[in-house]
């Protein structure tokens, strides 16, 4: 499809205007504005055992939850899949510590972090009445995929966990409610938003523990699984570790990633791919329709050349086109 220079110019201008319009929309609305009128929020007490907290997450079909310290009556951070990854890594290098891992409470996760030498996750939070745009920026600065909304009780001045915003929620919200996304017609290859360098990958036979290490080292949420020639065949996601250690069993770490994937639930959305010629409008369409958290960018032959994550997209919408 060859576009005349004039048409190209028009597409570029339209995209710039559309991004600006989405941005001003995000600035005009607060996090509170976009909450449902009635919603649920699952909070875990920090004295809960880690293995029990895993069951709670799986039962409720969620992948993260805010923590509450009952002793201090304060918000105590978020429990995410990376906490479980830390525990797995700890147990793998300290197999004699089964008793400790088995009896580990959520407030002991910080000790695990220290023991294996990972940076504690940034506990950025934001007040619900701040603009969405600000919440997104703060989330991005903290290189986090979610940000808790924290307010204070008017009478007791104690913290209240209001809700947790995720990149996915914000982008689906934009995809659903900003018609401007239809005008994002520039090929994503032009936008310089695809992560191409240092995209770690693994093969079906790679031990799952190695894949988990890759997730942790790269601070990424997924590792593409490729065959010998580099064609994309599947993906291992950070949330897959929840299913792996279901029931508190850490004995399956010797599995290959292919075997570990057998534990994935049937409603797995599948792996989404795109090419550098695809447009952000198409990408946003897919975000609106499916529960997709990243797109692997492939060449025409199907080899992985990069990945387009939700953070990449969000960063472009927040800061791109300047």
């Amino acid at each position, binding site marked *: 499809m060859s576009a005349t220079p004039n048409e190209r110019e028009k597409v570029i201008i339209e995209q710039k205007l559309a991004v600006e319009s989405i941005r001003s929309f995000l600035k005009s609305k607060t996090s509170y504005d976009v909450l*449902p*009128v009635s*919603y649920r929020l699952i909070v*875990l007490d920090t004295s809960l*055992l880690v293995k029990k907290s895993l069951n709670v997450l799986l039962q409720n079909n969620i992948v993260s939850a805010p923590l509450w310290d009952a002793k201090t009556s304060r918000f105590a951070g978020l429990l995410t899949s990376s906490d479980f990854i830390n525990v797995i890594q700890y147990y793998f290098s300290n197999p004699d510590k089964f008793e400790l891992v088995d009896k580990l409470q959520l407030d002991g996760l910080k000790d695990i972090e220290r023991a294996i030498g990972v940076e504690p996750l940034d506990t950025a939070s934001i007040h619900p009445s701040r603009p969405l745009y600000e919440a997104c920026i703060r989330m991005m600065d903290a290189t986090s995929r979610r940000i808790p909304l924290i307010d204070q009780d008017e009478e007791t001045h104690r913290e209240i966990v209001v809700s947790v915003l*995720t990149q996915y929620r914000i982008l*689906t919200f934009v995809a659903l409610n900003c018609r401007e996304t239809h005008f994002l017609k520039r090929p994503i290859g032009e936008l310089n938003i695809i992560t191409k360098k240092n995209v770690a990958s693994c093969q079906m036979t790679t031990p799952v523990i190695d894949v988990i290490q890759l997730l942790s080292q790269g601070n990424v949420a997924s590792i593409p699984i490729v065959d010998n020639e580099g064609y994309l065949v599947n993906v291992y996601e950070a949330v897959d570790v929840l299913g792996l250690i279901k029931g508190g069993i850490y004995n399956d770490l010797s599995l290959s990633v292919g075997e570990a994937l057998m534990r994935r639930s049937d*409603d797995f959305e599948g792996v989404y791919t795109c090419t550098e010629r695809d447009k952000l409008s198409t990408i946003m369409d897919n975000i609106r329709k499916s*529960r997709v958290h990243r797109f692997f960018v492939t060449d025409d032959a199907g080899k992985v050349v990069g990945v387009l994550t939700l953070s990449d997209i969000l960063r472009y919408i927040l800061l791109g086109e300047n």
Partner: protein
Amino acid sequence: MAEENKDVSMLDVRDASKDDGSPYEGTDSSLSHSLSQMNIDEGEELGSQRPQMARRKSTLIFNDDEDEIPPYSHHQEHSEESQTNSGDERETSIGTSSSSLNSDRREAGEADSGNGASPLVTVDHGESEGTTQAHGEGSGQDSMVPVDITWQQGGEKVYVTGSFTGWRKMIGLVPVPGHPDLLHVKLQLPVGTHRFRFIVDNELRFSDYLPTATDQMGNFVNYLEVIAPPSQEKPQTKDKQRDNENKNDVARRKTTDPVSARSRIALEIEKEPDEIGNGFTRFREELTLGPSLEYTQDIPAVFTDPTVMEQYYLTLDQQQNNHQNMAWLTPPQLPPHLENVPLNSYTNSQNDSNENNSGALPIPNHVVLNHLATSSIKHNTLCVASIVRYKRKYVTQILYAPLQ
């Protein structure tokens, strides 16, 4: 996009109460029916009927999102509007423009997918006109609260559509004389939470001056909580002061016009404060006109005099057509409203959670707020939940903690 996702939010509370065949359902509704008629006709002398009034309201709260509620079209014309301009002519213009909108809105994707299953169909006007009139003249108006919906963000042709019309019908807004950028329409809405959007020159929009929320499908909508008219308990001075404040703010909000001669006496304009916390005063909203009621110290005779009580229950039983006619003899296990807490109607199926990533729940009935619910203790883990207000929204907090 399975059908069950279609707007379960606000319907299932009500459905549940129908389905479980609770004996109190029948009692309540027949009670409310007979009493709501009396309320109208005897506007001022309500003292002795207060307890029943309260019951009626609590059943009506569940009405919020019922698609089939007919009286939505009971618009009040602005007083300056000439009679000829109302009714037929506007209905027709809605009809034509809605059909032209049809394709446009489909193209807008799931913009309206809150009811994706129901395509935009213009309701048969003859029929709705009929209902309108019936309601104008009938006494059902008592359960309706007049609500003025305004639009001030430009555009030529502005319509409002929402849960109160089943998202099918669009109601046109008319200009407010003297305020060039302001359009409005007065609706009679049942008590409850209503969601709506505006269609401005064929484009689906929402107002920046009204509360907003995301529905279960993720659509961004305006919403509005219509609460039952309060009794006239507020000191007069405070009201006057508020009225003055209101006048200073006409550009943002139009003062409600009295609805009718009778209502003008009986209803009082009641305003909510502007502030939604942290200095945010984005929107203003007007609610609640109420008949003048008084609290009394006297216990109604129906509770003190056995013969009156007997007579009362006999009347009730006769109205029941002998269905469940002894139901009132058995006290309920729980207050009936507590059997329908939103958490119990939250389906956790995979299918649901796919669409419902924000954890949206049905709108809770006010009476279940601030109750502590618990599940049975499993695996030494206690799970407690409580529904609380957060500003104008409801958070159902679920806390998991180990049993110490």
